[in-house]
């Protein structure tokens, strides 16, 4: 595996391999000194053209725990402000000797484009509405460990609630969860669903769609809440945050109707009082902090697979 651009590029076997490798990284992270020399001398550069705190620091921590060197490229203080093109920026930094770029960009497909301009490995850390593959992997790992489903998600029912249409997290998660065998229901008002569900990656995804969270709630093993982006109000896709919250927010009444074993997940940053009305610290099934912790381990597994394993984890088979 040379790049990680999209969950759609991964076979279920490759997803399983990455999740198994993540077990090893979790063990490293539990050591008194959570650092191994595996990627000594490798240079990992974060190139973030969009705001991010958790994804960037998570990748940074992951690279450092594998002893790679890291460099952060802050767009706000860079020559991009002097009009340098994306290609010139990438080629300039690559000329300094880079083994992997971790890229976030507002345009879908930008990481794919960058693979043509450099020999370095490219990790997509979020591109437009398209993909956020490491988020999907850390979500899958969180479900795998939280519900003890090491062999796959057969029979699990996962509801993804919120702004599906504009969400790269939803696209990536649907692909990963269904590849692992889960049944996925998308829950959202019609204005926040893609015009055709088939548009999700251009395939006919085996997902159900519901406009009614209360009908779905008692049946799910995982309730995955997406962040409601406030700028959607301006696009007139939602009448008001209060109305969204009343229809789709997780309040105490809805939390009480979840199955006792059900996990509640959120990719962050959370809008308290909108999609998350209850205090997540009071939810017995909240896996939100586990997601953050697992994010570091999953990104270690990704970086190690791209830079450290010499070739594909399981060969070409």
């Amino acid at each position, binding site marked *: 595996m040379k790049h990680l651009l999209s969950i759609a590029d991964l076979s279920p076997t490759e997803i399983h391999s990455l999740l198994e490798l993540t077990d090893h990284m979790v063990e490293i992270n539990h050591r008194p000194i959570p650092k191994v020399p*595996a990627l000594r001398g490798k240079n990992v550069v974060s190139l973030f053209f969009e705001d991010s705190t958790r994804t960037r620091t998570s990748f940074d921590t992951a690279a450092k725990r594998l002893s790679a060197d890291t460099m952060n490229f802050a767009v706000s203080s860079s020559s991009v402000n002097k009009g340098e093109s994306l290609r010139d920026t990438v080629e300039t930094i690559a000329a300094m000797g880079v083994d992997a770029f971790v890229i976030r960009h507002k345009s879908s497909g930008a990481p794919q484009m960058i693979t043509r301009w450099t020999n370095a490995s490219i990790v997509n850390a979020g591109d437009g509405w398209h993909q956020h593959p490491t988020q999907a992997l850390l979500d899958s790992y969180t479900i795998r460990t939280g519900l003890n489903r090491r062999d796959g998600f057969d029979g699990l029912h996962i509801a993804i609630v919120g702004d599906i249409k504009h969400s790269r997290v939803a696209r990536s998660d649907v692909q990963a969860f269904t590849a692992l065998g889960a049944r996925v229901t998308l829950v959202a008002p019609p204005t926040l669903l893609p015009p055709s569900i088939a548009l999700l990656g251009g395939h006919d995804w085996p997902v159900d769609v519901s406009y009614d969270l209360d009908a779905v709630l008692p049946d799910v093993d995982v309730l995955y809440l997406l962040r409601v982006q406030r700028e959607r109000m301006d696009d007139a896709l939602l009448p008001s945050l209060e109305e969204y919250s009343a229809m789709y927010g997780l309040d105490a009444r809805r939390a009480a109707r979840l199955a006792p074993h059900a996990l509640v997940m959120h990719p962050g940053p959370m809008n308290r009082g909108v999609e998350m009305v209850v205090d997540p610290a009071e939810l017995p099934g909240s896996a939100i902090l586990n997601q953050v912790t697992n994010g570091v381990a999953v990104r270690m597994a990704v970086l190690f697979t791209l*830079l450290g394993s010499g070739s594909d*984890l399981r060969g070409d088979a």
Partner: protein
Amino acid sequence: MSREVLSASDVRRALTRIAHEIVERNQGLEGVVLVGLQRGGVWIADALAALLAEIDPAHPVPVGTLDVSFHRDDVGLRPIVPGSVTDIPVSLGGCTVVLTDDVLYTGRTVRAALEAMNEYGRPRAVQLAVVVDRGHRELPIRPDFVGKNLPTSSEEQVSATSDGVVIR
């Protein structure tokens, strides 16, 4: 072409001898911990623990496993398929660690193991038990307990399991 060098009962006898040697060398089993290297050394640590329990039931020996994948010096040069996750049940500080592996060859796995083990405390001593020493060392590393010294050519492949030792 494969040829059996040790049968299952030969391996069994060799491990029994090694178990007695471990007791003799350490004047008992006080503070001894067995650590099997993933993946080929894990069954040996388990087998030795069972044999040691027969010799001295009063001192049960803790058994751990160590995955050295992320400490190897050939990361990036060859595909790495990690075995199971490292599991060291006790702090190794002050203990006598007996590392176990199936075949001792270049010594690079043992070097990685010595480094990986640092994370779990400072052992009083580290000893190495292997079923087969096939030579061709590339590092100054030697075993303390050997089932069989086996001269080989570097083209050959050696496998050592509880079913016997086979050269291919």
